[in-house]
């Protein structure tokens, strides 16, 4: 019996069966709108093994970017952490390293992310709240005190002031005797998604892109182990986008960065290998695994065909994954451990390079130490006990996964084309297109939950009437702001003010000249103990501030 004949027989059987026993839903749709068939078989995908899938570590990298993936080394287990002062965060870092974490990931407070010192009026109530407060390089010294920066890789979630935090990291390295060449890590430095989804922008797009290109160019020349950007779909997804929009908007943004760097005399092969990505992993395991595979394949094609990349490294999509904070519920918080497990598993099955697992109490506050530990243990259990890390791309060849990989890739391409026609990512952001799409998807999701079409266990089904929410909540001491303000005063009193002012003057002048790379000047300002706020204000004077379009 051939496949077609067999399928015909099954089809009859299936139709008869569902006439008698109706299915749970009329349509089984993914959040991205794709609809699942009852079963998949070899006829569903036209995948050509050699050209579409190929082998791990080989173009188009559908199955993974390394030839043996996790058989060599597990993904980097990197928990995002930071709160209060640099000293407190330093203690949390050391704790995490002791527990077997393999990379650091720094969360900064909002004043730092928006380039205000702790003594700024707008910093009221925000200092040390969603991350660590960094005002000067002295704070940065305290943050990494006792940690060997040549042995650990550090990821920093910092965007508009990305160049300044990178400069601080370099200066800390150099002042503790390390050459910048040996430093490894990532700055997020992805301003476009800030306009779209996360909101910590400062300058308008044009000068922002220039500053980012400055860091990419600088790292290509001076910091071979540093990723100067982590182009992030995570926040786009968290703001409400579906899986297709997540990847399409991220790639559109990525292309805008590549285009910007290519305006300089530097070839795509020189820097594209240092571009890294950051995606979300939500609850639908099949959709997420296929998404990661589709993204890898499509990015390789874009780099090869559109940009003429030659080296494999320039075509590889290397990404960090974080489990989806927006899927965590305040109700029955322990259920979140299971959600995080499924999401983390998707990321590993999808071939991620590093992973953050959320803590189960995050819907309620900053994570407590206990919750962070469970999150890290989740990764360790997947790595050491589940067996999924022992062979490459274990779901590759699954009929449904290959089918979804194909479909998602096609849909992402369509969306990318549409953005291209609008004039690229910057135009699509300035007109509010991306924001509008995200708001629509977010509202659709909300309606689905409100109407009960989308089941969230513990929220709109299997609720518990009297819920006990009395568990430990981590608090940040409001006195931290006073401490930070005092620390700024101390640094300003001790520094050579002439030198500090002069370095800011030079930075101001250089900012006006588009042909000058600002990184060396920022490093000088940091060395001379200028504060983050002073440096960003200098640039604000030249670049102006961004005002968002009105989008619902």
């Amino acid at each position, binding site marked *: 019996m051939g496949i077609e004949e067999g399928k015909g027989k099954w089809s009859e059987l299936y139709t008869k069966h569902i006439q008698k026993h109706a299915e749970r839903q009329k349509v089984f749709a993914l959040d991205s709108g794709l609809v699942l068939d009852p079963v998949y078989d070899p006829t569903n995908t036209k995948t050509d093994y050699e050209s579409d899938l190929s082998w791990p570590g080989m173009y188009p990298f559908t199955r993974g970017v390394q030839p043996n993936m996790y058989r060599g080394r597990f993904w980097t287990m990197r928990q995002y952490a930071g709160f209060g002062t640099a000293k407190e965060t330093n203690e949390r870092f050391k704790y995490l390293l002791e527990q077997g974490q393999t990379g650091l990931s720094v969360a900064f407070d909002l004043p730092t992310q928006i380039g205000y010192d702790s003594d700024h009026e707008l910093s009221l109530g925000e200092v040390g709240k969603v991350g660590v407060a960094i005002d000067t390089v002295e704070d940065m010294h305290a943050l990494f005190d006792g940690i060997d920066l040549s042995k650990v890789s550090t990821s920093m979630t910092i965007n508009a002031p990305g160049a300044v935090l990178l400069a601080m990291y370099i200066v800390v390295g150099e002042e503790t005797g390390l050459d910048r060449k040996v430093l490894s890590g990532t700055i997020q430095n992805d301003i476009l998604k800030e306009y779209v989804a996360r909101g910590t922008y400062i300058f308008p797009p044009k000068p922002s892109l220039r500053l980012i290109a400055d860091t990419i160019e600088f790292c290509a020349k001076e910091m071979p182990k540093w990723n100067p950007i982590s182009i992030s779909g995570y926040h786009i997804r968290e703001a409400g986008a579906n899986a297709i929009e997540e990847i399409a908007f991220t790639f559109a943004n990525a292309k805008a960065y590549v285009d910007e760097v290519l305006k300089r005399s530097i070839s795509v092969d020189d820097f594209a290998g240092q571009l890294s990505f950051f995606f979300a992993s939500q609850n639908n395991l099949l959709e997420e695994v296929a998404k990661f595979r589709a993204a890898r394949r499509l990015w390789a094609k874009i780099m090869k065909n559109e940009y003429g990349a030659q080296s494999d490294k320039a075509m590889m999509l290397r990404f960090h994954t974080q489990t989806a904070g927006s899927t965590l519920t305040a109700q029955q918080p322990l259920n979140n451990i299971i959600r995080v497990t499924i999401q983390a598993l998707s990321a590993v099955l999808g071939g991620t390079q590093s992973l953050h697992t959320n803590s189960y109490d995050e819907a309620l506050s900053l994570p407590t130490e206990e919750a962070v530990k469970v999150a890290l243990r989740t990764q360790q259990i997947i790595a050491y006990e589940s067996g999924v890390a022992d062979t490459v791309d274990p779901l590759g060849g699954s009929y449904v996964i290959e089918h979804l990989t194909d479909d998602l890739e096609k849909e992402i391409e369509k969306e990318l084309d549409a953005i291209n026609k609008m004039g690229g990512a910057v135009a699509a952001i300035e007109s509010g297109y991306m924001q509008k799409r995200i708001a629509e998807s977010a509202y659709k999701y909300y309606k689905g939950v409100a109407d009960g079409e989308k089941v969230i266990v513990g929220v709109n089904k299997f609720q518990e009437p009297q819920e006990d929410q009395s568990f430990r909540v981590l608090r940040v001491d409001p006195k931290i702001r006073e401490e930070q303000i005092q620390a700024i005063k101390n640094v300003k009193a001790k520094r050579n003010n002439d030198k500090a002012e002069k370095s800011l003057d030079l930075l101001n002048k250089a900012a006006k000249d588009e042909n000058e790379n600002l990184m060396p000047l920022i490093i000088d300002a940091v060395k001379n103990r200028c504060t983050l706020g002073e440096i960003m204000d200098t640039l604000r004077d030249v670049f102006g501030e961004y005002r968002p*379009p009105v989008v619902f």
Partner: protein
Amino acid sequence: MGKYNALINGVKKGSQAAIAQSISIIEKNDDDRLELIKALYSEESCNTPLIGLTGFGGAGKSSLVGALAEVLLKQDKKVGIMAVDPTSPKSGGSLLGDRIRLQYLFPNNKLFFRSFANKGALGGLSPILMESVKVLEVAGFNYIFLETVGIGQSEVDITHFADVVVLVMSPGLGDEIQFLKGGIMEIADVLVMNKMDMPNANISLAALEAYSRLLDQPPTVVPVSVIARQNIDLLLKTIDEVYENKRSTGYVEKLRMERSNALYQAWVMQMLRPIVDQRYTSEEIPYVAAKSIADRMRRCIDDR
């Protein structure tokens, strides 16, 4: 005097609380408003230029108003802005988002911004809006901007009554063709091509200039970039000139008369509607019933 003495005094002193409260009373369609309206109109008010800004969504009207206000505030002028957004026909609610672009100008006691939901007023002219303009006039504002979203419906009529009508467009969307077709270009005094910082904006500008020359009285075309803060002063100067020209030729005075007349008509329609609505029964022929009630009303009025 009446119970709104203190409130009107507050308005005259420019108190934002008094202005806001007055507009609220005007918005609430109850008996209170009669006394307030009487008190308001008995006040002398300066003739503040009323500038209507309109254009399709996304043309950058709110940012442009913000940029204009920014310049005027620096000159120590008092600026009033009224923004109108459509109401959802389904729920009757509305999302009023125009403020977002101007929030950075606040806090500021010389700037007053009010969002209005367009509740589908009869004849397009919203009496509430026109009477709110009066409040700002009594309060001694130097400029009043009226910002409306979308073109083709009632908003046209509102802008029609502004002293200076500014049409805002952005490059590459073919706005100019839509406006030309819709006949809206003819009522505009100033055509703004915004976002001149965009690539190929010059092509759109050239097209707009060509189209504008087709009109009997070609409006002034001003290329502007809000992001680059380019030509904001020029636009302001153009608006001032248009206003001054209309004022010196007596056109502003004429417009004000037309405005009052339109306001009267709008109110009459609005007040009569509930009266006539309730008198119709489904057995009647609509036209015959309407004619009969109109005749009765005419007789009634003529008898007096």
